[in-house]
């Protein structure tokens, strides 16, 4: 059976079918991400002072990934314009560039950003023990400067077995710069460039810790929302890349030769999805990386 209105407009809607289809789908996507973003707002508003981390993510890497997604949005719209101008060769190259951008974005996320988090440790100190760890937290300094209090000690966990072995009574942490030198005014605000944990070892008694894990979704409301939202966004990038690969393979050439406008419309619809994914990232980036 021939699917109707792939290129001609349907009289009652004034649109070709896939166009109204993708917009209805995107409307449901807005609700899906809207739900998650509103959960983010809820968790953040509810977080006591000092409980919502600031500057934990790698800003240059996040900025680069943002730029990559924006460039891929440009290349996909250029791919579509090339088809409209009946330049298949140019279309092929723009599509390849789009696919590569998507793959780079996912690779950075899955090979660098996420694993780096899984290797990072943080422990929230019990309120009554905060004084004891003043040398790592510098809360006299933060109070003087009217900054939110520091409740967590983070860094590289040297004795990882401490997480599972109840006989080990303390965590040995290669401290992050902020905990290694907490009264230094340079630590008041997050750094632009990523600074790895220092060689300075901090020892934290397990008895003084409220919660201590690697930076996993279970670590905090921040990381739970970070992994959920960037994970779902990453799945969308993956889906877009797979669709683009299909449209870039030789089968698309056959459709192009039979009906170029049909392929152009398919690319437009996939492009609309891709722009939406870019649009979501435009909000994810400042909310998680910068603020």
């Amino acid at each position, binding site marked *: 059976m021939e699917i109707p209105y792939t290129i001609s407009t349907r009289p009652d809607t004034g649109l070709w079918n896939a166009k109204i289809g993708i917009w209805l789908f995107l409307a449901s996507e807005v609700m899906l991400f809207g739900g998650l973003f509103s959960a983010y707002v809820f968790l953040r508003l509810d977080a006591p002072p000092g409980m919502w981390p600031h500057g934990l993510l790698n800003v240059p890497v996040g*900025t680069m990934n943002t730029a990559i997604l924006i460039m891929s949005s440009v290349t996909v*719209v250029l791919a579509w314009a090339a088809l409209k101008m009946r330049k298949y060769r140019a279309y092929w190259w723009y599509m390849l560039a789009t696919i590569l951008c998507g793959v780079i974005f996912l690779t950075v996320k899955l090979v660098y950003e996420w694993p780096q988090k899984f290797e990072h440790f943080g422990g929230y100190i019990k309120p009554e023990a905060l004084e004891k760890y003043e040398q790592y937290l510098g809360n006299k300094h933060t109070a003087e400067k009217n900054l939110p209090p520091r409740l967590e000690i983070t860094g590289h966990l040297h004795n990882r077995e401490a997480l599972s072995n109840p006989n080990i009574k303390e965590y040995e942490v290669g401290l992050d710069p902020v905990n290694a030198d907490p009264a230094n005014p340079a630590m008041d605000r997050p750094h632009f460039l990523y600074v790895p944990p220092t060689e300075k070892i901090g020892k934290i008694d397990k008895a003084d810790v409220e919660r201590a894990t690697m930076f996993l979704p279970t670590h905090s409301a921040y990381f739970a929302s970070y992994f959920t939202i960037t994970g779902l966004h990453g799945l969308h990038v993956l889906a877009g890349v797979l669709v683009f690969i299909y449209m870039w393979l030789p089968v698309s050439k056959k459709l192009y030769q039979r009906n170029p406008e049909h392929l152009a419309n398919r690319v437009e619809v996939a492009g609309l999805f891709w722009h939406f994914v870019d649009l979501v990232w435009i909000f994810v980036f400042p909310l998680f990386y910068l*603020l």
Partner: protein
Amino acid sequence: MNNPPDISQDPSEHEEYAHNVQKHVKGYLVVGGLLLAFTAITVALSYVDFGTRKANIGVAMLVATLKAGLVGAIFMHLAAEKRLIYRVLIFTGFFVLGLFWLIFLAWYNPIVR
């Protein structure tokens, strides 16, 4: 900015049409450049202290909304789309605002207050 017109069925008009699309391509490149510039601005502004964290969040969300508007209007052709699509999006916008309104109610808690 309007969208390129639907392609002409008459091959003799195709050249003029292709020229039209070419003009739009320039617009897309400009918008891409603007989006990259706004990204740099967002990053730079996040290191400027606007007094409170709330003010910084407000500024960043303002820039992000501007960027989202550019993507929507130009890349997604919403600057000139058919009426039915606007209708669908108005409904969606209404319900998404409702979602955030619920969060506001939970935070402001007018019943207990």
